[in-house]
């Protein structure tokens, strides 16, 4: 797995992390291309099923990025997201994927540097963990079979 390049899905809140990603770009801060950003209207909008489907479709890691405590545009969507992430972490443990492949992070729209830093750290962490135990299998299983 020397040249393992993890696939990481980042669910980014439109009001903070998504803008922060933009900011990172305009500040010429580099971050790994492994991160696949999905813009969501609020981190609280991310449901367990979205996270689980990301893994099922081949993600090696997932994180949900929401606003700083007290800054949620929808009052407490970020805190709901945190609790949901904890819940899904336990489910991932049950499945055998491991809850450590999922994280909740919080930042503001102006924190381009933090977005880049988290993206790098997450990529490194998942690189160390190796491919998701279901990844090669899911890829294989989703190959059309000759009938």
């Amino acid at each position, binding site marked *: 797995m020397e040249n393992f390049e993890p696939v990481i899905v980042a669910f980014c809140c439109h009001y903070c992390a998504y803008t922060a990603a933009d900011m990172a770009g305009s500040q010429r801060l580099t971050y790994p291309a492994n991160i696949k950003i999905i813009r969501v209207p609020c981190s609280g909008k991310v449901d*367990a099923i979205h996270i689980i*489907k990301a*893994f*099922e479709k081949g993600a090696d890691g997932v994180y949900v990025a929401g606003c700083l405590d007290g800054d949620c545009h929808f009052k407490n969507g970020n805190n709901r997201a945190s609790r949901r992430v904890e819940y899904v972490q336990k489910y991932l443990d*049950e*499945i*055998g994927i491991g809850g450590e492949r999922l994280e909740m992070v919080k930042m503001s729209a102006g924190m381009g540097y933090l977005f880049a830093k988290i993206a790098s750290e997450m990529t490194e962490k998942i690189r160390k963990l190796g491919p998701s135990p*279901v990844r090669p299998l*899911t890829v294989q*299983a989703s190959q059309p079979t000759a009938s």
Partner: protein
Amino acid sequence: MITAERKPLEELIEFVRPFKRILLVGCNECVTVCSAGGRKEVGLLASGLKMALLQSGNTIEIREHTLERQCDPEYIDELLPMIDGVDAVMSMACGCGVQEVARRYKNMPVFPAVNTKFMGASERPGVWAERCQGCGNCLLGVTGGICPIARCSKRLMNGPCGGSVTGKCEISQDVDCAWQLIWDRLKELGLEDQYLKIIPAKDWRTAGGGGPRKIIREDLTA
């Protein structure tokens, strides 16, 4: 509503391991409201099972379907086109739904995906608490609208035991003393005298002591 909780995944994996193709059936009633077995939970479980089994090299096909109601035969008929070709059914409904599916599809192994817990109410988001044990002879009219059978840990019908302290039950600080609640409410309603009436020993036949219970409404029977 009837509340339920998903069984540990490990147990469910063992149920389905021998099969290649299963039908996972949710219910759009109670178990949807308590987030245990609705459409969303069916999706989550299907993904979880597939991924868990893949790690031991097993692939399984899981058909997902959520019925409007799983305790009525009319709705269960809906499964007929989907059931063809599957090896087993896993139901995310309460025990009533599981049994109705089993009754309708006689040759199909049926497994429960949830543990049915109790009849309860939602105290706040994410918290459900037992409120009724379906004793078949409601006492709420004389107990201030709070059930001592479902909510007193000793099912006392005539007042608090000696373990009621500052409104809490002796078994846990997280459990309200039902009789404290009853008394507070009787006082609020000016019905303190009601407490002095002795509730006689209950006839438990209506609570299931007489075998499986049944309601027959002649005017509605076909």
